[in-house]
């Protein structure tokens, strides 16, 4: 018997977009033009750029069944490293390379701890997180380093091309690369296979150690890049940067439809998830809620959004 089936579109894979649209709509109705204007929304993309960029890499980490809690600390140390190199040499290339290579190294160490020493990633990265943050404090004796290189600050911070914030362009670039990696390269297929069933991946001849080290290295690289953006936006580097960011990044990825248990990843969803968190923050501030109220409402919205998306995914 021959039968045809429609190309099924699973609405639940798109739930984050729907939630995003609803939240956008509700804030627009509530706050009107103050919120729903091109300049404010572009502002949100600038505020969320760091979390969005890290969410792309975190998508791979979580899709492979791991987690990385050290990203916030890497942000701080790389921001300080870039600022310090700029202070000494005033060479943007050196500053970039220094910070990014440092990020890759830290990521690779995380990967080695998880694969060769078999330490659960939650604990391994919790440990490295503390070490890195400690280094960041020690390195400058907790003092801030200001950045006077205007080109650097323009390229990675407050610059605009016409009306388009440059950090937004960086975010889109990272998003495209991540998307291609996950869906078009064999690397992505291997990451998903490891997260979906590590034993089957091993029996299929996938080098799990190598892939996991690559995943963590990419996480380190993009966390360092986020640190550079932080530093350039603030024109200063401080050891406090990125504190608590790991949780926002993880929340963004999960909101975006990546399974915490691994095997499934959604890069675009992760960035939308990050924007969703940013929109909620932004809307609540414009709405005039004080900090304590913002915290409470934000908590509720996150729980409802995650419940909505995980509940619907089970069907």
């Amino acid at each position: 018997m021959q039968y045809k089936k429609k190309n099924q579109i699973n609405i639940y894979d798109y739930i984050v977009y729907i939630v995003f649209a609803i939240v956008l709509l509700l804030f627009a109705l509530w706050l009107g033009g103050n919120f729903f204007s091109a300049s404010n929304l572009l502002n949100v993309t600038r505020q969320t750029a760091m979390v969005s960029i890290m969410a792309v890499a975190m998508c791979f980490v979580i899709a492979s069944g791991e987690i990385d809690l050290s990203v916030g600390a890497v942000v701080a140390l790389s921001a300080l490293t870039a600022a310090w190199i700029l202070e000494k040499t005033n060479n943007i290339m050196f500053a970039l390379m220094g910070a990014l290579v440092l990020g890759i190294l830290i990521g690779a160490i995380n990967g080695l701890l998880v694969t060769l020493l078999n330490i659960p990633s939650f604990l391994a990265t919790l440990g490295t997180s503390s070490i890195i943050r400690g280094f960041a404090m020690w390195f400058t004796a907790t003092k801030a380093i200001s950045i006077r290189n205007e080109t650097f600050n323009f390229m990675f911070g407050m610059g605009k091309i016409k009306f388009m914030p440059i950090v937004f362009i960086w975010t889109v670039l990272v998003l495209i690369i991540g998307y291609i990696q996950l869906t078009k390269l064999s690397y992505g297929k291997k990451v998903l296979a490891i997260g979906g069933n590590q034993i089957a991946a091993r029996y299929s001849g996938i080098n799990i150690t190598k892939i996991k080290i690559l995943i963590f290295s990419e996480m380190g690289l993009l966390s360092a890049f986020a640190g550079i953006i932080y530093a350039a936006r603030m024109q200063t580097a401080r050891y406090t940067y990125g504190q608590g960011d790991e949780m926002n990044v993880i929340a963004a990825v999960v909101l975006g439809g990546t399974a915490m248990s691994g095997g499934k990843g959604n890069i675009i969803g992760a960035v939308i998830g990050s924007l969703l968190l940013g929109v909620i923050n932004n809307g609540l501030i414009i709405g005039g809620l004080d900090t304590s109220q913002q915290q409470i409402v934000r908590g509720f919205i996150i729980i409802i959004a995650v419940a909505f998306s995980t509940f619907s995914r089970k069907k």
Partner: protein
Amino acid sequence: MNDYAIELLSINKSFGRVPVLKDVDFKLRKGSIHALVGGNGAGKSTLMKILTGVYVKDSGTCKVNGKEVVIHNYNEARREGISLIFQELSLIPTLDVTDNIFLNKEIKKGGLLDYKTMNQRAIQLMKKLEIELDVNEKIKNLGVGSCQLVEIAKALSDDTSVIVMDEPTASLSDKEIAILFKIIKQLKARGISIVYISHRMNEIFQIADEISVLYSGKVVASKPTQEFTLNSLIESMLGGKKNEESMKWKERKTQIGIHNVLEVKNLYIDDIIKNVSFVVKQSEIVGLAGLMGSGRTEILETIFGLRKKKSGTILMENKEINNVKQAINNKIALIPEDRRRSGLVLMHSLCDNIIITNLDKVRKYGFIKNKKVKKISNEAIDNLNIKSDGIKIKTSLLSGGNQQKVVISKWLATSPKLIILDEPTSGVDIHAKTEILEILRNYADEGNSVLFVSSELSEMIAICDRIIVLKDGEATGELTHKDIKNEEVLHYAIQKEKSN
């Protein structure tokens, strides 16, 4: 008084439209050991799962001590005094012996756990069974044999009167088996009845009072052990009939080549495999026959580089194999034993599963081309006749036979020269089985080699040019297709003791 602890009368059970048990009668005498034997899929496990409430029967009666009962779940079975020693042990590795014995029936004093009493009772139990074991030792630190004994102690702590043991000796050493048998006899002396499921005929003759044989859902023989001989038992296990048509030997189209594709020399693995050597020639299908726990899987996994060998050499076309990468580069493929656990990523689609071993083939300038993915996946569906609603269907939704075909496809697409299969037909329906065997025949006819393991001897006889017999990690014999006149010969070779 009633003589029987358990009476199962005219039990029927179907899964969907497939009848698994047909009018089965099974009576367990009080204080006796009753062996239940039969091939894979004969219905042994299903019958025991009905007895212990895991499955619900379609019709029939179940009597415990002469009284009719209906058992809905395992807890009710335990209340009736029936315990099951699971094949996969049901102990919690991170807890100690006492904790495991009293799991979910902890003794409390004033709302708090009474460790003292529990420990004392556990020690008493161990003494009764004459087991020397520290009750405060964690399960993960114990060997499989000791775990088996703890399982028994756990069952006894429930005041059990019937114990069902499913392949209890599969992973035990000779010494542990001796201890287990001593305890079983002791239990019998205390009036406890035992259902003993095993594939090992020697053990059954050693310990059972009665034997019931199941063949495709029917009881074909049930009598005292003395009335059986090894031959008559094997004959009734095979249903006293000839192989089914599809499972018959077919003459191969291609001659077996002369040069060795795979050479295994003096292979030792841990303490499991001792000095195993064999070769597989071009266009040849070689079988490894042996009981569960005889080391078949270990050998296959070592050839594929997944396990470390202690010593010996594995040569694939004269190149040494030490890891998976070398195995794959030298065109070896392994279809693993448990397709759900090691063969597939069940949450992923058919095409994603197939391309994972063929990523090089679906790429162009480094990018995965959907066109090529579609092509390779549709070819697999066509070549192996996979019944699937498209290539994007999740593999968890496919039937067992089709899942297995996906695993075979993902490796056939790598065009291996040697394909190794570990129980490729378990849990696969007869039609798909026939198809899988035909695929292997054709594959070997194309000049490739096959190394095949199956518990179903009829399958091995149907396709193997040569069979190597394994017993307790040693190669004890080698039979060519001509030597094997019927299934009994092979059964006999597997069961018989070492000849030295």
